[in-house]
C-alpha cells in the first residue's frame, strides 16, 4: 500500500449469534479516492460498513483514522469523524418536506432558537442543483419518486461536510442520466479530497468511477487492488469464486398462440398501449424512471383500476379490477420493491411461498403443513433457495433468496403469464444468473413472460422482444437481434421515436 491511508480497518472480526460474518477483514481507503467494496450478498460488506458507521461493534480489530485509533461507539461518533452513510434503504420521513429531511437532526437555528427556514431551503436547493435535480425544497417527500428520494439522501451526506461517504447501492432506483450526474459529482468530491466507499452490484458502474477495489467473500478479504489493471470478468470471478458469463441467455424456440393481448390501454400514467405476448415468449419493457411501465402492468394486474382499453387473455376479453381476478385469469406479478410490495416480513418463508395458492395446500378447509413443507422442499431445490429452516421469517433471508421465494410463490400459483418487475433489484450476481436461468426455463416450458427493467442490458440478455417506453408510450419495439443498448437509450430518453403506431 501507499503511504498513510486515511481510514484503516484492521483485522476486523464480527460474529452474529455465534456465526462468524467477518473473519479478520482489513480495509484501507486513501484520502480522495473512490473505493469499491464488492462481494455477493452475505459476503459481509454491510456488516463491515455498519462497523465503520458505528452501528455494530467489532468483536476484535481496530479502526484508524489518519493513523489514530478510534472507537466507533455509535453512529454519532462516526458522524463526528466525518463519516456519512447513505443506506440502501432510504431513511426518509415522507411526511416532512425536502429541506426538513435534508437537515433532519442538524437544523440551522438562529440565536433565539427558531429555524432558519429560508437558509436551509437555499442550501438544499444549491446542493440539489449540483446533482442536477430541480425539486422545490418545500415539497413533501411523499410526493416524490424513489429516484429523487435517493438523490436527496445523497445530498444530505454532501451537506454534512463529510470526509468519507459510504454509498450502499446508491443507483438502484436511478435512471441512467441521474447516475451519470451522480458520477460527475463523485469525481468532483474526490478532487476536493473526500473519500468514498462505493458498494454496488453493477460492475460496469464500478469500473467507470472507482479507483481501487476490495472484494469480500464469505467474510474474508479475497482481493484488493487498483481498478485500472482489472477487467470486469476477473473481478466477477473473484466475487463468486467462479466465472460467470455475460452472454445472452436467450433460447430460440417456436412460440405458441397469443396469451395476452392489450389494445389501446390508456390511463393517466400511460396512453395507447398495444402489444401481445405469445406462449413461450419473453417480452421485455424498459425505459427510464417515470416511463409508466410499472403503472401499466399494475393496472393489467388489477392493482390500479382507473384505465380504459381492452385486455384479452387467450382471446377472451377480461375485466380485471382486483389481483385475485388477475390470478384467476392467469396473470402473476412479481412486483418491484420487494420489501414494500412482495414479502410479508412477519410470515415465515414457508407461508410466504404458499400465500397466493392456499387452495393447493388445503384439505377440508384446513391447511396441511406437511404439503407446504414438501412443496417448499421442491422449490428450494429447483430454485436453489438457501435457507436452513423455512420456518424463520422471510426478512432474515438475503435479497436474492427472498426474491426466489416470491418467484416460487407465483410458480406455485401456476399462472400462464408471469410479469417480473425489476426482478433482480438489489440481488447479487450469482443469484441474478439463477433467476435469469429460471425465467428462461419458464419460457421453455411454454409460459409467457414479461420482464420490466430499467437496465437495458438486462432485457437484452433474456428477452425475445424488447419494448421501449417513454412518458407512458411504447416508442419502439425491437426483436432481440436488432436491439443494441444505444438505440434503446435513444428511444428511452425520447430523443428518437418510431413514427408508426405499433401493435
Amino acid at each position, binding site marked *: 500500500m501507499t503511504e498513510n491511508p486515511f481510514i484503516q480497518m484492521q483485522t476486523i472480526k464480527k460474529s452474529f*449469534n455465534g456465526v462468524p460474518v467477518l473473519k479478520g477483514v482489513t480495509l484501507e481507503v486513501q484520502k480522495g479516492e473512490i473505493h469499491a467494496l464488492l462481494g455477493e450478498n452475505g459476503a459481509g460488506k454491510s456488516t463491515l460498513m455498519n462497523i465503520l458507521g458505528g452501528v455494530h461493534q467489532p468483536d476484535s480489530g481496530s479502526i484508524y483514522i489518519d493513523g489514530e485509533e478510534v472507537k466507533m461507539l455509535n453512529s454519532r461518533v462516526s458522524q463526528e469523524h466525518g463519516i456519512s452513510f447513505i443506506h440502501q434503504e432510504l431513511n426518509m420521513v415522507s411526511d416532512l418536506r425536502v429541506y426538513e429531511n435534508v437537515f433532519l437532526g442538524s437544523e440551522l437555528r438562529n440565536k433565539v432558537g427558531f429555524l432558519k427556514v429560508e437558509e436551509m431551503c437555499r442550501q438544499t436547493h444549491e446542493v440539489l442543483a449540483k446533482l442536477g435535480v430541480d425539486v422545490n425544497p418545500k415539497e413533501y417527500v411523499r410526493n416524490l419518486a424513489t429516484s429523487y428520494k435517493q438523490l436527496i439522501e445523497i445530498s444530505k451526506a454532501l451537506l454534512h461536510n463529510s470526509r468519507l461517504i459510504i454509498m450502499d447501492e446508491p443507483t438502484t432506483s436511478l435512471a441512467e442520466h441521474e447516475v451519470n450526474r451522480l458520477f460527475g459529482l463523485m469525481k468532483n468530491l474526490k478532487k476536493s479530497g473526500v473519500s468514498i466507499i462505493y458498494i454496488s452490484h453493477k460492475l460496469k458502474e464500478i469500473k467507470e468511477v472507482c479507483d481501487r477495489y476490495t472484494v469480500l467473500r464469505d467474510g474474508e478479504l479475497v482481493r484488493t487492488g487498483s481498478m485500472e489493471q482489472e477487467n470486469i470478468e476477473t473481478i466477477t470471478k473473484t466475487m463468486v469464486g467462479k466465472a460467470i458469463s455475460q452472454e445472452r441467455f436467450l433460447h430460440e424456440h417456436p412460440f405458441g398462440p397469443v396469451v395476452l393481448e392489450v389494445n389501446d390501454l390508456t390511463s393517466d400514467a400511460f396512453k395507447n398501449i398495444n402489444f401481445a405476448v405469445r406462449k413461450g415468449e419473453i417480452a421485455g419493457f424498459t425505459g427510464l424512471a417515470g416511463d409508466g411501465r410499472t403503472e401499466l402492468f399494475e393496472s393489467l394486474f388489477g392493482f390500479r383500476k382507473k384505465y380504459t382499453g381492452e385486455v384479452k387473455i387467450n382471446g377472451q376479453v377480461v375485466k380485471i379490477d382486483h*389481483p385475485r381476478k388477475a*390470478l384467476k385469469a392467469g396473470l402473476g406479478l412479481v412486483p418491484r420493491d420487494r420489501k*414494500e410490495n412482495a414479502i410479508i*416480513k*412477519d410470515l415465515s418463508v414457508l*407461508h410466504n411461498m404458499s*400465500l397466493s395458492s392456499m387452495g393447493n395446500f388445503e384439505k377440508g378447509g384446513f*391447511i396441511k403443513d406437511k404439503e407446504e413443507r414438501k412443496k417448499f422442499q421442491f422449490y428450494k431445490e429447483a430454485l436453489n433457495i438457501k435457507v436452513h429452516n423455512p420456518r424463520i421469517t422471510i426478512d432474515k433471508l438475503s435479497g436474492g433468496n427472498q426474491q426466489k421465494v416470491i418467484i416460487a410463490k407465483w410458480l406455485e400459483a401456476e399462472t400462464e403469464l408471469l410479469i417480473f418487475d425489476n426482478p433482480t433489484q438489489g440481488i447479487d450476481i450469482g443469484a441474478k444468473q439463477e433467476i435469469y436461468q429460471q425465467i428462461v426455463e419458464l419460457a421453455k416450458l411454454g409460459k409467457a413472460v414479461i420482464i420490466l427493467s430499467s437496465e437495458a442490458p438486462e432485457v437484452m440478455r433474456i428477452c425475445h422482444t424488447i419494448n421501449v417506453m417513454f412518458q407512458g408510450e411504447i416508442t419502439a419495439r425491437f426483436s432481440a437481434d436488432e436491439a443494441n443498448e444505444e438505440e434503446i437509450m435513444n428511444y428511452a430518453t425520447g430523443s428518437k421515436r418510431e413514427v408508426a403506431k405499433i401493435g
Partner: protein
Amino acid sequence: MANINVKEYQPEARTTKNRLSWLWAEYSVIIAFIILFIGSSILNPRFLDINNQLNILMQVSIIGIVAMGMTVVMLSGGIDLSVGSVLALAGVISVLALNASGSILVGVLTALLVGSFAGFLNGLMVAKGRIASFIATLGMMAGARSIALYIADGGSVSGEVTGFTAIANSDFWIFDVPVLIFFVMTALVYVLMHKTRFGRYVYALGSNEKAALLSAIRVDRMKIGVYTLIGTLVGVAAVIETSRLNSISSSSSGSQYELDAIAAVIIGGTRMTGGRGKIIGTLFGVLILGILNNMMNLMNVSPHLQGFVKGLIIIIAVVFQKRE
C-alpha cells in the same frame, strides 16, 4: 485447567443464553403469568383455593371471549372500540326478542345477529369506506350505545323467560358454562388463525397490506370478515352477560370492555400495528388481568386504585416486549 475449561465452554454458554432470550421472546407472557401466579399464591393463601381459581375463570370469561376477537382484529392491523357498546345493544335487543317470542333460541340468535351485523358494518366502513378502524369503531361505539339507551329508555331490561338464566349460571363438571364457552371460543379462534387460510391472510394483511393485495388476497373481504367475527363473538359475550343476572343495563353493561380486551391483547404480546401475535398470548393476557383483579380484591386494595395497578401492568408489559 479450570480456566481453560471455562473458556472452552463459552460458545455453549452463549447458545444457552440465546436459547433463554428466545424463550423469553416467544413465551414472555407465559413466564410473566407463572411468576404472577407463584407470587399470588405466596402473598395470599386463599388465592390457590379451587373455588377462587374457578371464580377467576368465571370473571374473565366475557372479556376473554371479546379479547379473542380483538386479537384477530388487531392482528389484521385494526382495532375495535365498539365492543362494549355493541355488547349492550345486542343484550338489550336479544332480551326484547326473548320476551316477545318466549324462545331462548330466538334470544340467543338475536344477540349473535345484532353483534355480527354491527361488526359487519364496522368492516364495511373500514374496508370499503377506507375509514381508519379507530374512527369507524369509535363512531359505532357512540352509535350502538345510544340506540341501546333509546330502546331501553336509559334503564335495564330483564328477561321474562324461565331457563334463560341457566345459560350462564349452570355448570358442567367443575366448570361454569361461561368458562367452557370461553375455552371453546378460544379453541375455535386458535384453529381459525393457525390452521386455515383465513388466519394466514389476516397475518399477511396486518403485516403488509399492499403485499397481501398483490398476492391476490381479497383484502377488503378479509377486513369485513375480521370485524364480523369480533361482532359475533361480542354477541356470544352479550348472551352470557345478559343471562348471568337475567338483565342488561343499557347504560353500564359492557362499559370499558374495549379497554380490558385491548389490554389483554397487548399484554399477550400482539403488536399494535398487526401481523404479529398469538391467540395463546391473549389467553394468558386475559388470565393475567383476571389474577390481578382477583388479588387486588383479596388484598382489599381500594377499587379506586385498581385501575392504576392495571394501567401500570399494561405499560410494564409493553416495555418488556419492546426489549426483544
